């Protein structure tokens, strides 16, 4: 019984910590973040299984964790509000070629990282970025002006 409570507590604690840290930490790991993610299992392992090294305890711990993961995933799918709570929402970093400073500050995301993503997308200038969005998984999605123009072009033609 105690193992179930411990695993549930640590799961919720780590989930909350990951939400607090922000989306960027989920995608690209800096050396400091990598060290932290390696150390966390070492630190929490004993508090989860204590001195009980039986297979029974391991199975209880693993099934508790997997149940929590499945339940969280199912609830997040069924209830978008719950999904926003546990996964957060996408954050706009650039809109119509303008950096959104508040978002960059909140996400601790330097403009250089946006520039790197722009280069990957084949975009040279910030003015050519229609949207740059930090997705909940930590990736940066970029929509450029040209693509936006191309998408709108048929409508424009019809109007014209």
């Amino acid at each position, binding site marked *: 019984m105690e193992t179930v409570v411990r695993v549930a507590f640590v799961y919720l604690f780590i989930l909350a910590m990951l939400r607090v840290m922000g989306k960027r930490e989920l995608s690209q790991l800096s050396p400091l973040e990598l060290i932290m993610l390696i150390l966390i299992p070492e630190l929490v392992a004993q508090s989860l299984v204590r001195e*009980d090294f*039986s*297979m029974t305890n391991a199975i209880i711990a693993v099934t508790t964790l997997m*149940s929590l993961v499945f339940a969280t995933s199912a609830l997040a799918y*069924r209830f978008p509000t719950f999904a926003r709570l546990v996964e957060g929402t996408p954050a706009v970093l650039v*809109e119509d070629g303008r950096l959104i400073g*508040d978002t960059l500050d909140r996400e601790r995301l330097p403009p250089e990282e946006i520039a790197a993503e722009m280069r990957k997308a084949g975009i040279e200038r910030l003015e050519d970025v229609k*949207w740059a969005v930090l997705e909940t998984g930590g990736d940066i999605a970029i929509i450029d002006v040209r693509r936006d123009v191309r998408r709108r072009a048929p409508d424009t033609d019809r109007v014209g």
Partner: protein
Amino acid sequence: MAVSREPPPALGGRDHSRRVRLQGPQWVGIPLLFAVPLLALLGVFGESFTSAEAAGSDVALRVEYSTRYRYKQINAVQVRVDNVAGEPLDTVVVAFDPRYVRQFSTLMFIPAPQAPFEIVFTDFEAGGSRTVWAELQGEKYGTHRGTLEAYRTGGADTARVTLRTLILP
């Protein structure tokens, strides 16, 4: 132009009625997955204890022990022997069944046994009682059975209880 700070509405507000659907083996696997922690919360995989009593014409025996615990956990068998003969007894033996005890490891007995798994009490006053404490560490998986006996040396009968302990892997 005002900054909306909302990402572009890729779906245009469209959604569908969301339902969580299981498929194929998930109908079996997911209930099983949830069953294990739920059963654990109900104590099915935890320790359980019981007591048993028996009496002969000379001694009465009461034992409290664990009927279920896990690999490498340590539990105690607590035995109380009473002299019910109405007279002092020279020698009383408390004997654990070796078939039962040998399924465990890191054995510790208080008082120490004089013979393998046999504790001997001498000069046992009428109406008096003695206690035996045995710590057994779970080693071999499965259900282990054996007897615990208490008798007066040369006596007519034996107080005997059956011990049954399940060691979870």
